């Protein structure tokens, strides 16, 4: 009995509300229709109609907001709340067939209502389309609870992504595409790098899954395709960040490309960052898209400065596919930046050769790690320190020559980081005593003062008015 009542309550909107909505017209719309009919009968001309409408204040013909409307809104809210409570209290008594039919009718009703609103008010449909986007996962959850479905935890979300793909494809709205891309990214990482699901690419018991790799590639291609449909939004370039994160996850997780030893991550970071930077040049991405690869290269160089502290034999064990991928990325980036015309890297004729050298050096250093012994690693650490300091000084010089405050500040920050790090490395033991702490504090203060003065001088030189 309760099921019949609930079914009737859910179906009742479809029994006449669309006809009622079609018959309802605002007074302004009725007046416009009357004017149009008058034109057809030759009573007035089109110009007269337009002048009348211009003259009239439309506010006078707008339906005033009455207390009755407010009561009606509350009445509707009470009905919806009551219906929800009725369903919640009697949920266990509602049979599976009723749940299925109710959901199907609700879904269809939502879709039709959205299409109706789109025809009347195209600029007000986004919230409805977002609800439409989320409806399939509500249905999947309802079916899972009703029919006690379980098993692969990723399948419900994969199904949702597949069902909502046509909606996203037809609508071409940026917000819906964004939501779908977020869902695909969640599937890519949560499915690919966790075990016991259809998308998992983790090696299990020394066996490598093959079909999940195909799913991963398809997901990635779909994400890239949808991202580039977000034109002209600049966020579409974040797909490069995503691919870099995915490749790094391949190295970190227990996959076919896994790197078993920590030393390989130094090399991987430099290889991936330089390859990523290369792609930003090839695809002519905006300058801000190079920030992350530059940061990656900087931190890989910074990490190399700590190789000085390695005092034991390095284990270079790694998976063959992982090693080959790293070498391929490094080789491609190295060849690209060496063969590239320096003028295409930077327009400044003095700077472009230096830039080329600064980009190529981390790649070469990281490759040198692969065949270095302990002494070799110390040499690499020393070179990395020198290059970072040189790079910082060059950035400050370039900034002062071209009035770029950012370059000056960046150079100063890098210099400060290297100085503090090396100070702690070399004088770390001394800092434990009282005198050591005082000396360290005075030294750091003088360094900070010196840097600050140098920075101000350079900023003043580049832009006297700013100071």
């Amino acid at each position, binding site marked *: 009995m309760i099921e019949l009542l609930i079914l009737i309550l859910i179906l009742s909107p479809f029994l006449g509300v669309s006809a009622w909505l079609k018959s309802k017209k605002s007074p302004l719309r009725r007046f416009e229709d009357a004017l149009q009919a008058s034109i057809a009968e030759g009573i007035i001309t089109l110009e007269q109609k337009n002048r009348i409408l211009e003259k009239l204040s439309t506010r006078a013909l707008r339906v005033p907001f009455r207390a009755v409307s407010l009561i009606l809104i509350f009445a509707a809210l009470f009905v919806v709340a009551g219906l929800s409570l009725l369903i919640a209290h009697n949920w266990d008594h509602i049979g599976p067939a009723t749940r299925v039919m109710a959901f199907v009718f609700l*879904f269809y009703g939502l879709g039709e209502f959205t299409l109706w609103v789109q025809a009347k008010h195209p600029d007000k449909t986004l919230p409805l389309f977002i609800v439409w986007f989320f409806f399939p996962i509500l*249905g999947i959850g309802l079916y899972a609870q009703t029919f006690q479905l379980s098993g692969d935890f990723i399948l419900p979300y994969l199904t949702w992504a597949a069902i909502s793909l046509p909606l996203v494809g037809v609508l071409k709205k940026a917000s819906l595409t964004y939501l779908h891309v977020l869902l695909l990214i969640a599937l890519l990482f949560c499915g690919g790098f966790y075990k016991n699901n259809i998308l998992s690419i983790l090696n299990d018991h020394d066996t490598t899954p093959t079909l999940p790799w195909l799913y991963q590639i398809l997901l990635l291609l779909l994400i890239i395709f949808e991202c580039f449909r977000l034109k002209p939004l600049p966020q579409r370039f974040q797909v490069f960040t995503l691919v870099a994160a995915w490749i790094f996850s391949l190295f970190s997780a227990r996959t076919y490309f896994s790197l078993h030893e920590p030393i390989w991550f130094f090399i991987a970071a430099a290889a991936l960052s330089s390859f990523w930077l290369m792609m930003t040049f090839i695809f002519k991405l905006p300058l801000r898209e190079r920030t992350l690869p530059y940061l990656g290269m900087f931190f890989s160089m910074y990490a190399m400065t700590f190789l000085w502290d390695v005092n034991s034999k390095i284990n270079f064990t790694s998976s063959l596919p992982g090693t080959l991928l790293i070498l391929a990325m490094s080789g491609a980036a190295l060849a690209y930046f060496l063969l590239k015309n320096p003028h295409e890297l930077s327009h400044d004729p003095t700077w472009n050769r230096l830039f080329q050298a600064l980009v190529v050096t981390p790649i070469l250093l990281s490759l040198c790690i692969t065949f270095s012994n302990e002494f070799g690693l110390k040499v690499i650490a020393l070179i990395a320190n020198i290059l970072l300091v040189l790079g910082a000084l060059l950035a400050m010089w370039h900034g002062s020559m071209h009035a770029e405050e950012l370059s000056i500040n960046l150079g100063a920050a890098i210099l400060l980081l290297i100085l503090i790090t090396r100070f702690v490395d070399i004088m770390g033991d001394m800092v434990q005593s009282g005198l050591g702490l005082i000396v360290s504090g005075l030294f750091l203060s003088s360094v900070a003062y010196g840097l600050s003065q140098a920075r101000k001088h350079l900023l003043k030189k580049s832009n006297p008015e700013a100071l």
Partner: protein
Amino acid sequence: MKKHLRIVLILQVAYFLVWGIWLLTSHLYGQDVWLETSPVDPRDLISGHYVRLDYPIARVPNKTCDLKNYTLDQAIYVELEKSPLAKKTSMGQVNLWTAKRCQLEPPKTMASQAWVKGQIKSVGDQHVSITYGIEKYFIPENSTLRTAQSGQVVAKARIGRNLTLRVLELTLIF
């Protein structure tokens, strides 16, 4: 675009309708089996409250299985048999079912036999671990079943048309 959107809507609704009808009818008629369980209590993101269930039939001895050229996640068929061990529940005396043997080939089902389909998760030295898609059961928040201890709960499951299991209800053992 309206025409295309309507086609999308019809396809989506049709998918849920067909899937719903299949779920309603797939386990309408089938053999019921009682299975011993071990519950744990997590929360599912999209389906409300559920308990995780583990079954003794999820670990079948290797010596009773024909596992020639198996691969992980491959379908496997397990024959269940009613054990003489009876348990007293709120639904009366019930006999629990245990795993008798397993094989990779689909069985030529005979009326007196109860075969169920699962998936190979791992193969150890002694046992093969199998999942049946019944490792979660959705129950209301205030249900006493959520606090039940291992061995105190049995599951009534039905074997569907495609030899898959579906849990119909959980009940406490007295």
